[in-house]
């Protein structure tokens, strides 16, 4: 028999190894699942993980889908470091899409250089405003930011659905619930002709770097981390809990809002009933798998993006249901949590005949 024993100090090696273990376990599970569904597993893996990246267009799609995950994920990671559990990034993303899309529709046809920055700014502010609600209610009324931010996801999604079915519907759109297509000046410039990946990817990379500077090189970032790791020490040092909650939620909201406006002013090019296939929720997994570290968020976003892309390819090529993606994503987080056990604990063989029983 073996038993769990707390390690004297957390294992740094396991900190880095556990996301890899989790990814490996996910792949093993995938093998079994593909086999159970009657598919040749190696062929399915090839379709899922290799084929999407075997063309320049595929790589462009990979980076395109990684962009909102990087943005939402890095915002959430900074917040989770301070133990502010903002899980409503999907709603903040949707509000960013609504605010940015609203500006694009208001200035429809205006061909000016200031328009795109204004649209992005509106998206950021929309996401921040939506995140400010749970921040205000938590700091003023002690409500759980988990529940409030999540409830607001549904409200934001319903608002978007109302807008594209009502006031913002394209009058010439054959009654489809969507807005007019944005004009060129309201769209994010593409990085490479022929690929859909746009400048938002570069902005996201820059923000990851900025997040690293903020988290590891600024006093505000230090304060947030201390209040997450040792709340008592933080309050003894006079770090304001309220300021941390506000900061965590506003950063999360701003980056999710940018992700949302990046979708509507990017690949979507218009407002549709839904602004994302759940990037805001997937970003929770990205933040954890990425160890709440900006570089980790980048790698986790690329992995999760590949899962989205692979799911689409597998649907086309093998007729696998696209919902396999969500299943893989959920499994990945489970395996990570289980593997994380070895950061703080280790297995110790129970000596035969020992009188340890209590």
């Amino acid at each position, binding site marked *: 028999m073996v038993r769990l024993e707390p390690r004297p100090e957390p294992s740094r090696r396991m900190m880095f190894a556990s996301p890899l273990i989790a990814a490996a376990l996910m792949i093993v599970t995938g093998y079994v699942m593909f086999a159970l569904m009657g598919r040749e597993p190696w062929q399915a893996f090839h379709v899922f993980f290799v084929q999407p990246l075997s063309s320049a267009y595929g790589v462009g799609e990979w980076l395109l889908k990684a962009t909102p995950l990087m943005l939402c994920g890095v915002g959430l990671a900074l917040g989770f470091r301070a133990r502010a559990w903002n899980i409503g990034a999907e709603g903040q993303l949707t509000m960013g899409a609504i605010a940015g899309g609203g500006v694009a529709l208001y200035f429809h046809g205006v061909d000016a250089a200031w328009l795109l920055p204004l649209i992005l700014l509106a998206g950021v502010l929309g996401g921040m405003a939506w995140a400010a609600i749970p921040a205000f209610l938590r700091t003023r*009324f002690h409500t759980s930011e988990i529940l409030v931010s999540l*409830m607001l996801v549904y409200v934001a999604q*319903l608002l978007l659905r109302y807008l594209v079915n009502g006031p913002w519907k394209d009058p010439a759109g054959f009654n489809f619930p969507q807005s007019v297509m944005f004009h060129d000046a309201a769209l994010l410039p593409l990085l490479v002709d022929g690929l859909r990946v746009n400048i938002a990817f570069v902005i996201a990379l820059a923000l990851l770097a900025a997040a690293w500077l903020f988290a590891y090189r600024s006093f505000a970032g230090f304060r947030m981390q201390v209040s997450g790791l040792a709340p008592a020490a933080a309050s003894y040092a006079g770090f304001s809990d309220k300021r941390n909650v506000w900061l965590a939620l506003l950063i999360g909201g701003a980056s999710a809002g940018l992700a949302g406006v990046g979708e509507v002013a990017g690949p979507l090019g218009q407002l549709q009933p839904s602004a994302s296939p759940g990037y805001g929720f997937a970003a929770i997994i990205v933040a954890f798998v990425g160890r709440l570290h900006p570089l980790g968020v980048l790698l986790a976003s690329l992995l999760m993006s590949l899962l989205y892309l692979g799911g689409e390819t597998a649907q086309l090529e093998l007729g696998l249901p696209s919902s396999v993606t*969500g*299943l893989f*994503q*959920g499994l990945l*987080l489970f395996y990570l949590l289980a593997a994380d056990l070895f950061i703080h604990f280790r297995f110790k063989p129970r000596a035969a005949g020992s009188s340890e029983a209590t």
Partner: protein
Amino acid sequence: MSPELLIAIVASSAAAATPLILAAAGELVAERAGVLNLGQEGMMLAGAIAGFAATVTSGSLALGFVAGMAAGMALALLFGVLALTLQTNQVATGLALTLFGVGLSAFLGRDYVGISLSGLKPLALPLLSDIPVLGPLLFNFDPLVYASLAVLAATHVLLFRTRAGLKLRAVGESPHSAHAIGQPVIGIRYLAVLAGGALSGLGGAYLSLALTPMWVEGMSAGRGWIALALVVFATWKPWRVLLGAYLFGGVTVLQFHGQALGIEVPSEILSMLPYLATVLVLVLICRNPRTILLNQPMSLGQNFFPRG
């Protein structure tokens, strides 16, 4: 308001409240044992698809509800292995359970989209349902509506009138003291989490077998999260769950009867009401930090590792 409309509103409020009562009662038991399981939404969805699939395959509604409970318990067991045995963070594990449940139910449910069932029929209580107006108003619900009330009563009796309930609450308030006097803390927490999973799964099965007898991806639409909020609203007391759930049930059905009541608001805006109401009641309850401090189980969300 005509009596017919009133009866329709009461009946649909009760139906909307029932899954919330079941899931909230389950979560309340788990939280009383000190375990915060944010996986309600995932367990409800698992219950919904398992129940629906079992009923479509077997033709038996009863079997569907049993399958829903079993699916909820299976996910709860997964949560238990991670958070109770392997000591993972309860918040993160619960979120993972929800994300996993959403993905798993969508995956398993892909062959069941577009099928519809006849669903659960109302059960008119003999004699009582013959009373004019009051009869159809209060005594003509489907069996699960009555069952949900019985579940709440049983939860109350279990927690506050039995030794087992006393032990469970002791584990939730102070696992270390409970452990010191020889109580199996982890074992009791497992039972509480499994009971919670069974009830959430049952609530989920109610969605796909009675409330809207079909399977739709993500059909719980945040009800698992509302159930979590209801437990806070109820300050961890079973009978107050009833009040909260029927309040939400009433708000939820406004969107269906808004037109009949002469409310000229787009349906999307009316659909926001349950979510906004959740935020509002959370603010009202949490406004005074002492309300929470005095009622919340002391060890809620904290892991317990038995040493020595």
